[in-house]
């Protein structure tokens, strides 16, 4: 019994630090509607700066003062990021904000290594709280007791702030209705900046408070961010008490879960989230989001299929690509195959996102399932490659059937987070279930059959699959079913009123996108000869999103160009620099701010403007497709 009580206390202490970070994220979302991926980066910055300060400042005052000063400094940094970057993108679709803040995270990661060095740092212990306190015969660290008190204290202070001060009343008003606050004559800009700084302060304080519990390292941002997302989503976006309850729930379930099933930690939080979201689609304390904003901006220019010149161009491009093996060496062919595979992957994501309006933050799930499906069948039954590819597509489709069934019950950010959760669950299974998946050591020896083993032949296979896959996706976009998807994206209300079945339509769309991503994943397995859990990981999902963004979210198939550019760039960067994250992060930020329509979107916009001038017809140019260039 004593043991269970102390385990409970330990869980409470864990909940406190989680709550600090999560409440900050929730407050920021409540007012600005920004899902701040960089929250983990601020958390890490808080820890690093606090480390530097506490190493230099003496005594108890120096230590605690150092933590607070660090949090304030990071809050100022957060305010700067808000003013310089976020102000420009408040009205952009949420995907852009997620990506921009992800870019900030990448930049922070490389900067942290450059400033503080690559090695793990160990924090000082808290003066006065070094030892343990005997609670019913169990030693509980004094610092844990401090955290246990701190959590509810911060919750109480936040309550006072929001209910007893003018600032707080404005924040709450803004959480309910942003435009109303503007109407009250409040300077909305500075309110947002202040709220963002407050949220960042809480994150940085959460990070600084980690010092006595262990160390600081340059991976701690991503370690916490996913968990914090889960807590905020479970609690209900924008709800501080929700974040508190959810942090408690997650921490206690973990503390007791590992007693029953020690392996459970990794998937537990995601299982909790999936269960909560299925029962309560807006989290425990969340309110339904207003239909305020599309996840992906709806283009005002109706899409058109390729015109004659566009088709000629597309065929010419494919023909030119088909000639590559005649001139290029093995390395270029392998890179070319990879570009084609990612073009298909990105096109499948664009299909679900741009056409269906469903932002998937876990599209890697289908890519990875495709790869694993192919690898498992190849190893277990020795099927030839085409059989393996078919199995990959089948496994990815099954995954999409299962995940999609849950996901279409949600909308907006909640949907994005649930897709992320499913991808993480799939990743955890692959990572931990060593007996079947080989775990981290993956599955080896998944090489193409003899007829496709030469790089040139395999390249042709990839070209065929990518061309057919992307063409098929385009056909669906312009089919009656594609019309129904776009209708649901534009106006779920009107769609239901004219008899369109939202869930089934979007579910089917999930499966189509999943199958296409699975095809890409299966080819990827044969290209690399092996499959590892990272094909299912968050970075793979984010890569896909960046490709779509780079190509242009508002286009039909801009992602194809986006994928080729992005993948080529990363391969190049990795080959020539160790600071690839810094460069990539900056690239993403610049893209979001300066070229929100992507490469293809921007180009076709220019062409459309040129083409439209003489005839003065309103933007009839096909989005990014060659018709835009036809005068």
């Amino acid at each position, binding site marked *: 019994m004593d043991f269970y009580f102390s385990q409970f206390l330990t869980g409470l202490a864990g909940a406190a630090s989680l709550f600090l970070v999560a409440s900050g994220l929730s407050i920021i979302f409540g007012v600005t509607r920004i899902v701040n991926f960089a929250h983990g980066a601020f958390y890490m910055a808080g820890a690093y700066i606090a480390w530097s300060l506490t190493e230099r400042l003496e005594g108890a005052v120096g230590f605690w003062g150092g933590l607070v000063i660090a949090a304030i400094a990071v809050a100022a940094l957060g305010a700067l990021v808000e003013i310089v970057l976020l102000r420009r993108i408040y009205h952009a679709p949420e995907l852009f904000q997620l990506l921009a803040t992800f870019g900030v995270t990448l930049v922070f990661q490389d900067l942290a290594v450059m*400033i503080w060095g690559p090695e793990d740092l160990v924090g000082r212990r808290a003066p006065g709280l070094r030892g343990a306190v005997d609670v019913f015969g169990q030693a509980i660290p004094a610092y844990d007791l401090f955290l246990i008190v701190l959590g509810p204290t911060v919750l109480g202070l936040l309550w006072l702030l929001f209910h007893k001060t003018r600032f707080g009343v404005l924040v709450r008003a803004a959480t309910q209705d942003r435009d109303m606050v503007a109407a009250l004559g409040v300077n909305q800009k500075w309110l947002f900046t202040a709220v963002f700084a407050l949220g960042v302060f809480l994150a940085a304080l959460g990070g600084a408070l980690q010092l006595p519990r262990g160390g600081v*390292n340059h991976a701690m941002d991503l*370690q916490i961010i996913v968990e914090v997302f889960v807590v905020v989503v479970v609690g209900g976006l924008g709800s501080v008490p929700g974040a508190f309850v959810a942090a408690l729930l997650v921490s206690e379930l973990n503390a007791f879960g590992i007693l029953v099933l*020690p392996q459970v930690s990794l998937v537990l939080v995601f299982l909790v989230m999936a269960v909560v979201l299925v029962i309560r689609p807006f989290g425990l304390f969340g309110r339904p989001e207003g239909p305020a904003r599309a996840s992906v901006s709806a283009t005002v220019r109706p899409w058109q299929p390729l015109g004659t010149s566009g088709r000629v161009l597309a065929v010419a491009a494919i023909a030119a690509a088909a000639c590559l093996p005649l001139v290029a060496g*093995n390395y270029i062919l392998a890179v070319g195959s990879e570009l084609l595979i990612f073009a298909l992957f990105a096109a499948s994501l664009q299909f679900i996102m741009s056409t269906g309006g469903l932002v998937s933050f876990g599209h890697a799930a289908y890519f990875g399932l495709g790869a694993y499906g192919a690898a498992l069948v190849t190893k277990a039954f020795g099927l030839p490659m085409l059989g393996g590819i078919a199995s990959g597509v089948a496994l990815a489709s099954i995954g999409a059937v299962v995940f999609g069934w849950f996901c279409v019950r949600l909308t907006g950010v909640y949907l994005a987070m649930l897709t992320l959760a499913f991808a993480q669950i799939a990743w955890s299974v692959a990572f931990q279930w060593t007996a079947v998946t080989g775990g981290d*050591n993956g599955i080896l020896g998944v090489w193409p059959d003899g007829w496709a083993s030469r790089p040139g032949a395999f390249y042709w296979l990839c070209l065929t699959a990518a061309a057919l896959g992307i063409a098929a996706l385009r056909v669906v976009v312009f089919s009656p079913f594609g019309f129904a998807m776009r209708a649901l994206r534009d106006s779920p209300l009107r769609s239901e009123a004219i008899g369109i079945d939202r869930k089934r339509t979007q579910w089917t769309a999930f499966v189509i996108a999943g199958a296409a991503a699975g095809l890409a994943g299966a080819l990827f397995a044969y290209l690399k000869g092996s499959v590892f859990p990272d094909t299912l990981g968050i970075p793979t999902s984010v890569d896909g999103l960046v490709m779509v963004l780079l190509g242009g979210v508002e286009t039909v198939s801009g992602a194809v160009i986006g994928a080729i550019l992005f993948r080529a760039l990363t391969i190049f960067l990795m*080959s020539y620099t160790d600071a690839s994250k810094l460069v990539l992060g900056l690239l993403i930020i610049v893209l979001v701010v300066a070229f929100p329509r992507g490469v293809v979107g921007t180009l076709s916009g220019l062409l459309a403007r040129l083409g439209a001038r003489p005839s003065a017809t309103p933007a009839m140019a096909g989005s990014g497709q060659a018709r835009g260039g036809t005068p």
Partner: protein
Amino acid sequence: MDTRRTILTGMALGAGMAALPALAQQGEIKIGEINSYSGLPAFTEPYRKGLQLAAEEVNAKGGVLGKKLVVITKDDAGKPADAVTAANELVSRDEVAMIAGAFFSNVGLALADYAKQKKIFYLAGEPLTDAMVWSSGNRYTFRLRPSNYMQAAMLAEEAAKLPAKKWATIAPNYEYGQSAVKVFKELLSKKRPDIEWVGEQWPPQGKIDAGPVVQAIAALKPDAILNVTFGPDLIKLVREGNTRGLFKGRSVVSFLTGEPEYMDPLKDETPEGWLVTGYPWNNVKTPEHEAFLKAYQAKFNDYPRLGSIVGYSLVNAAAAIIQKAGSTDTEKMIEAARGISFDTPFGKATFRAIDQQSTLGAFVGKTGVKDGKGVMVDPVYRDGADYLPSDDEVKKMRPQD
């Protein structure tokens, strides 16, 4: 600020090496090296210095086969798939004689499989997994560092001498942690059938929630604990364990904790009396190591980590193999490498013909604190050759060519 300069040096080195192929000359033999430079700088920077030092020494002595030895390094960002891309580039574009490197086991395995498929010589450095040379072994892959099994065997030998009967384990929940626990349990139980395994904890790698884990282990009241966590997880585990008194009166056996990479961050909180494998860089008094240490410190103004040893030995091994083969033909190199003996700062090591694992060993000792820093007390070098299973067992595990 020392670290910052190190990185800049490292980057310059990387860029310089990457730029070299453009000027590729007839008089060069190239080795393509792939590692997680952007993902794990704390490990790969000392390693890269080891590579650099060895390459300079080899070239100062006239290179290999009368040609200059060039090491081209590529980043894999910690992803096996990207490592394969890099290998492709090195093999097809840079036409390297062999590929080498990797830190993570999965990257190593991906490269080994690539090597087998493309019939390229692969000299693995750091990856620990036993699969590299046994269950997934192939004739193109040679591995330098003492494997998971070898480290487990060294630790189990000492652990068997402890009076402890009830054992609990803490290991990160992925292939490395799982197989480390499995091998250690097997070897220790074989030596000590009286031992009872009372429980295990499997925190997620890099995300340990140390409080509950420590508490859960303490509740089992074991006599001894096997730890496989490392890095940030280890720091948190040690701190929680110290505060909660988990380690008091208990023996702890811990993988890799004596390596400077893992021990140095712990500083004065390094737990005392843990039985560990590692590398006591300032306490190895052999002539080979003294020479290495002197050269390393003179060149980099920094002390070597275990990664430096691996990087240094890797280049030495590669040079010896090519020299003996008399050419960069893959088959000739494989023939030459089997049974070859080469220099390392720990003395001579050999690539076994039977499984192509090197006999490079490790130091076993106890942890202690000296001048506010973690050190290994009474370290003893264990030759890897003594901690490998019998040839019959190896033959059973390893697919035949």
